[in-house]
C-alpha cells in the first residue's frame, strides 16, 4: 500500500491545493470583476495575460519562474531585498507558482458568471440606493456563486494535477515540494511501476470525482438560471 513518503506527498499536495485555491479566489475575484465590467482597451491584453498559462508548456513556465525567482531575476532580487530570501525549492515558492499557473482556471468561470448577470440586478440595486461595495458583496457575489464554485473546484484540481512547474522549481524536497505528481514520476523513472500505478489510480479516481462534481453542479446551476430550480 502507500508508503510514508506517499502519504507525505498526498498531504503536501492537499495542503498546497487548498492554500492556492483560497489565494486564487482572493486574487482572481477582482481581476474577474474588472474583466467582466471594463470597456477599457486593456481588457484584451489583460485577459490574454491571464490566459497565457493555458497555452504555455508548464516546463517553459517553470523554467522562466526559476530564472525570475533566482538571485539574478527580478522577483528573486525583490524577495531578497524584502529579506525573505529565494523562493524556489520552498513550499511558498510552489504556492506562488501555482497561483500563476492556475489563475485562468479561476478567473474565467468567475468572469463568465459575472458577465452573465448583466446590468439589470446592479441597476435595480442602485435605484434602491445600495452603494457600490454593498452591490458587489450583496448582489454580485451571491448571484455569481455557481461561477465561484466551479472556479474553486477547477483551481484546486488543476493545482493537484500540476507537474511541470513543480518539477522545474521544486527540487523534490520531501514534505516541502515533493507533491504526488512528482512522486509518481519518480516511481516511473525508477521502474517501480507498481507503486506508480497505485498513486496514479488514486489520482484518476480523485480527478473523476471532482469533475463529476463540477458537471453535476453546472447542470444544477443552469437549471436555476433558467428559473426551473
Amino acid at each position, binding site marked *: 500500500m502507500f508508503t510514508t513518503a506517499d502519504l507525505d506527498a498526498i498531504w503536501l499536495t492537499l495542503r498546497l491545493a487548498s492554500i492556492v485555491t483560497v489565494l486564487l479566489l482572493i486574487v482572481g475575484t477582482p481581476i474577474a470583476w474588472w474583466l467582466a465590467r471594463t470597456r477599457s482597451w486593456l481588457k484584451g491584453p489583460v485577459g490574454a495575460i491571464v490566459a497565457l498559462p493555458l497555452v504555455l508548456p508548464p516546463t517553459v513556465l517553470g523554467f522562466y519562474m*526559476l530564472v525570475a525567482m533566482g*538571485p*539574478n531575476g527580478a522577483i528573486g532580487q525583490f524577495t531578497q531585498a524584502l529579506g525573505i530570501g529565494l523562493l524556489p*525549492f520552498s513550499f511558498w515558492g510552489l504556492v506562488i507558482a501555482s497561483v500563476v499557473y492556475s489563475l485562468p482556471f479561476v478567473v474565467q468561470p468567475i468572469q463568465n458568471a459575472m458577465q452573465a448577470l448583466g446590468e439589470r440586478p446592479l441597476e435595480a440595486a442602485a435605484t434602491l440606493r445600495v452603494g457600490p461595495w454593498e452591490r458587489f458583496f450583496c448582489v454580485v457575489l451571491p448571484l455569481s456563486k455557481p461561477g465561484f464554485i466551479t472556479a474553486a473546484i477547477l483551481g484546486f484540481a488543476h493545482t493537484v494535477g500540476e507537474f511541470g512547474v513543480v*518539477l*522545474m522549481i521544486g*527540487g523534490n524536497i520531501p514534505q516541502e515540494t515533493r507533491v504526488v505528481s512528482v512522486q509518481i514520476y*519518480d516511481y516511473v523513472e525508477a521502474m517501480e511501476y507498481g507503486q506508480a500505478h497505485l498513486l496514479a489510480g488514486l489520482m484518476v479516481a480523485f480527478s473523476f470525482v471532482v469533475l463529476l462534481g463540477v458537471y453535476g453542479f453546472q447542470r444544477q446551476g443552469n437549471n436555476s438560471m433558467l428559473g426551473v430550480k
Partner: protein
Amino acid sequence: MNVAKYLPWLAMGLTVTSQSWAEQVHAAVAANFTGAMKFVVAQFEQDTGYDVRLSFGSSGKILAQIQNGAPFDVFLSADQAKPQALQNKGLVQEGSRFTYAIGALALWSSLPDFIENDYSRLTSDDYNKLALANPKLAPYGLAATEVLQALGLKDATQAKWVQGENIAQTYQFVATGNADLGFVALSQIMSKGHVTEGSSWIVPSDLYSPIRQDAVLLKTAKDNSAATALLAYLQSDAAQQIIQSYGYTTE
C-alpha cells in the same frame, strides 16, 4: 486537376523519402551526454553522410519508452543497468552493448571563486542549497551521495539538498544561481577541455564507483546500416577524442 500528371513526381518523392529513411538512425541519448553527442554526430554526419535524429532525456524515461515501442534505433544510457534490463527482456541486439563513456563528477558553482578546487565549502556550511540529481534515478546523483558519504558529509548536508530529476535539471538549478553549488556531470561544464564558467572541484574518481555509460543497438534496428555505423563511430579515435574533451574517460 489532373492527378495523373503529378504521379511520376509523387512516386519519385516517395522513393527519395524511403531511401533517406533507410539511411537514418534515431538515437535516444541520456541527458548528460547531450553536448558531446551533438558534436560527435555533427562529425559523423559529415564523415558518413548518414542522417541522425537525436532525442535527449533521462535514461529512465527512455527505457520506459523503448519498452513501450518507441521507434529508437540506438540507446545511449547514463548507466549500465538500463541497457542490461533491456537486454534481459530480449530487446537488444546480441553483442552490441559496449561502454561508450565513463562519466566524471564535479562540484560546481556558477559563482567565480565560490569553490576553491576542494570541498571546503561543503564543510563550511556557508551556502544556501546543494543541488544533486535524484540518487534513486540518476547515476550522477548516486555518485554524488557516494562522495558525500565518503567525505562524512552526507547527514550534515542533507537538509540543504535539492534534487533534479536528471542531471540536466540539476545543472539548471546551479546555473540559474538558485542553488549556490551542486554535483553535476563534468561533461556539462566542460567544453574543449576546459571548465568554461564559475568555479568547480573535479571530484577524485576514487570517491565514487565509476559511472560507466553503456550503449546498445536495439533489435528492431539490427538491419539499419546507419545505426550500426553510428555505434562503430562512437568507438573510433575521432569520436573518443571528442568524448574525452567533454571530461569523460573512454576505454
